[in-house]
């Protein structure tokens, strides 16, 4: 069988959840075929491979589909158990990264989405909620990683680098599209971790281009380039 076709990723270029998967595969040196989906017109194959959620990303390996980005990451790490490892070896450290990945997906990401969709007074509330969650997130990561970047494992991008970085590294595009002032000074540590991650050649390669992403976010959420107050 052609090695190229052993692994297929169904995704969309702007989705951080899809970036997680392609980033992980690149990190591990696993060749794959990529299929760009149009979510307004989902392919038969996508629906067949992910009938429960009908979402991207989906990884298909030797004809068998796996959905949900965090599930896919653990599969990649377990099947291709070569170095670099995505998750730490130690069970307690594994529990920690799973905890923060879960916090990011269950708390940070939804709050960010709410913020995009809000207007007026609701928006102020949404900004405050995001601020509060970011504070908990940053403080928690600082505590758990003793001030070191949680996004690196030595030279390599770590599991949290993949999970969080795939979204957070786009913060400037997000801020521009949604017209929020993300007070970088309030979260100096987090921003420095993100900036270091953005500078990594693999992240540079895999992150969506800034202007294209700004336009995409605006289009997707029907935001005018100059939003009203």
């Amino acid at each position, binding site marked *: 069988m052609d090695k190229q076709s052993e692994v297929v990723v169904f995704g969309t270029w702007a989705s951080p959840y899809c970036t997680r998967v392609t980033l992980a595969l690149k990190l591990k040196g696993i060749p794959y075929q990529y299929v760009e989906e149009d979510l307004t017109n989902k392919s038969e194959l996508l629906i067949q491979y992910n009938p*429960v959620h009908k979402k991207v990303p989906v990884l298909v390996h030797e004809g068998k589909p796996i959905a*949900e980005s965090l599930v896919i990451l653990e599969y990649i790490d377990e*099947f291709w158990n070569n170095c670099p490892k995505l998750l730490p070896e130690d069970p307690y450290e594994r*529990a920690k990264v799973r*905890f923060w990945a*879960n916090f990011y997906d269950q708390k940070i990401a939804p709050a960010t989405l709410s913020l995009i969709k809000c207007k007026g007074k609701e928006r102020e509330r949404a900004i405050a909620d995001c601020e509060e969650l970011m504070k908990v997130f940053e403080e928690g990561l600082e505590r758990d990683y003793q001030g070191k970047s949680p996004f690196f494992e030595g030279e390599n991008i770590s599991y949290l680098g993949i999970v969080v970085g795939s979204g957070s590294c786009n913060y400037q595009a997000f801020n521009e599209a949604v017209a929020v002032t993300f007070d970088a000074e309030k979260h100096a540590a987090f921003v420095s971790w993100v900036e270091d991650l953005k500078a990594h050649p693999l992240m540079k390669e895999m992150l969506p281009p800034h202007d294209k992403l700004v336009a995409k976010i605006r289009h997707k959420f029907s935001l005018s380039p100059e939003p009203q107050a």
Partner: protein
Amino acid sequence: MASGGGDVKLIGAWPSPFVLRARIALNIKSVGYEFLQEQLGTKSELLLKSNPVHKKIPVLIHGGRPICESLIIVQYIDEVWTSSGPSILPSDPYDRAIARFWAAYIDDKWFPTFSSIPKLQEQEAKVAAVQQVYEGLLLLEEAFIKCSKGKSFFGGDHIGFLDIALGGFLGWMRVTEKMFNLKVLDESKTPNLCKWAESFAANNAVKDVLPETEKLIEFAKIRFKPPSAD
């Protein structure tokens, strides 16, 4: 590895399905532990210190270090106590992915709908939620057939990750059936899950920690007294 009774503590409460998951996993691995029960309506200093982010149970404390979130705890237990008891996650990476996928489905989609049923005031909304719960269980029935490969559990011969993920809610499914006079696990719709529920409840790792339905009903009457508190 010898089970360290003094080394392992679990902060929890007997009615919680999430705490139940952790207890079943500890039982599978024959790990002795101190069960520190929280009182309804208050949160202990230890809980707040051990889980400052969510302030929720369960929290496993092993060698003084806290682990939070029930399914993360279950995986931790599986990864630490490798030489006692059967594996909780399947051994094949694809089977592990399937188990994790359905566990995520249960927590992200199925449970929020299931837990909304007692809180919904309007009959129409209630009926819609119950319908969604059934649809979810139909999906899980199919998943069971694929995962069990003819055996008693999602995990095959032994209780595994997905059994624990779904089984944690068994007591509350029975409570819902009694209190709202409907079938959650219906032999005509999900016959395999009905059989599974019996096997699960009777299992050695489960039977002593699965709360009795009558006790849960009494608890529910206090916990969910309107106006609904969170």
